[in-house]
């Protein structure tokens, strides 16, 4: 198996998508989404950031075309990050003294 060469066309499409979604995330931040549901502003901002980061990892960093063992390492790393964030936040955000 030889290395996969990603075409400039794909790089251009991904780059343009990233720029467009930078505009979208800025526009979304000017709207008061928290009025609809508290915390919606940050949820939308993070969802767009995760989408953009996924595009970068899959195409710019070639994860989509990488061997399975490289993909496994990436997923394992994200799993540990999820553990760090979820377990710590489930502690802090559930404390009675949190907001007082």
């Amino acid at each position, binding site marked *: *198996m*030889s*290395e996969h*060469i*990603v*075409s*400039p066309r794909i*790089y*251009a499409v*991904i*780059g343009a998508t*990233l*720029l467009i979604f*930078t505009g979208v*995330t*800025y526009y979304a*931040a*000017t*709207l*008061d*989404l*928290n009025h609809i549901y508290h915390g919606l*502003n*940050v949820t939308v*901002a*993070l969802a*767009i*950031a995760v989408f*953009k*980061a996924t595009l*970068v*990892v899959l*195409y*710019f*960093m*070639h994860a989509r075309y*990488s*061997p399975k*063992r*490289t993909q496994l*390492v*990436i997923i*394992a*790393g*994200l799993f*540990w*990050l999820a553990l*760090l*964030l979820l377990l*710590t*936040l489930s502690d*802090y*955000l559930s404390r009675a003294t*949190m*907001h007082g």
Partner: protein
Amino acid sequence: MHRTGELYGQFQTLDQQREAASLGMWVFLITEIMFFGGLFLAYTINRAIYAVAFAEASRELNVHMGGANTAVLILSSFTMAMGVWCSQTGRKKLLVVFLIATLALGGVFLGVKYFEYAEKFHHHLVPGYDFHFPDVKPEIAAQDPYINAHAQLFFSLYFGMTGLHALHMIVGAGLLLWLIAQAAKGRFTPAYNTPVEIVGLYWHFVDIIWIFLFPLLYLIDRHT
């Protein structure tokens, strides 16, 4: 000794050698993700506790500079990716052009960051003895009487996170300088381009960190 892409003894094929190199880089990047992950966690917890002060402090940031820098960094990731393509397809001169473009865009990012930091010093928003948060509306001050101290916490995290990100950019710029020197000598060929690929992975990772820093620091409390 210069490595020209010959097969080393511990590998059976060049593909295996190349895959091992990129796997190793990914393992390093995972440690970086955990390192920045801890900072994002600290930011999230403090933002949840001092929501009022963090929202006020966040609005002091210059969203136009931050937004422009996001676009600059995404463009630099694109030129870096094009550099990888050039090295894979044997376009030696174009490779140098794209690497220089990437370095230049990285320089623009750091230049904008310099002006942003200078503005914060000018407005007394750098944590320390000289820190003075502008006066807020009485109803905001009533919600958080210690807003000056809590806003300082926001700016500590702001300078810590963007500062470490900028440090990564400076390291990346050094790597690019080395890469440009090697590429100018025509060292990278379709058979041997691992350094371009590896530096590319690093550069894209630094881009990803900014993709999260920009909305979290500049945007999420912009609407009110």
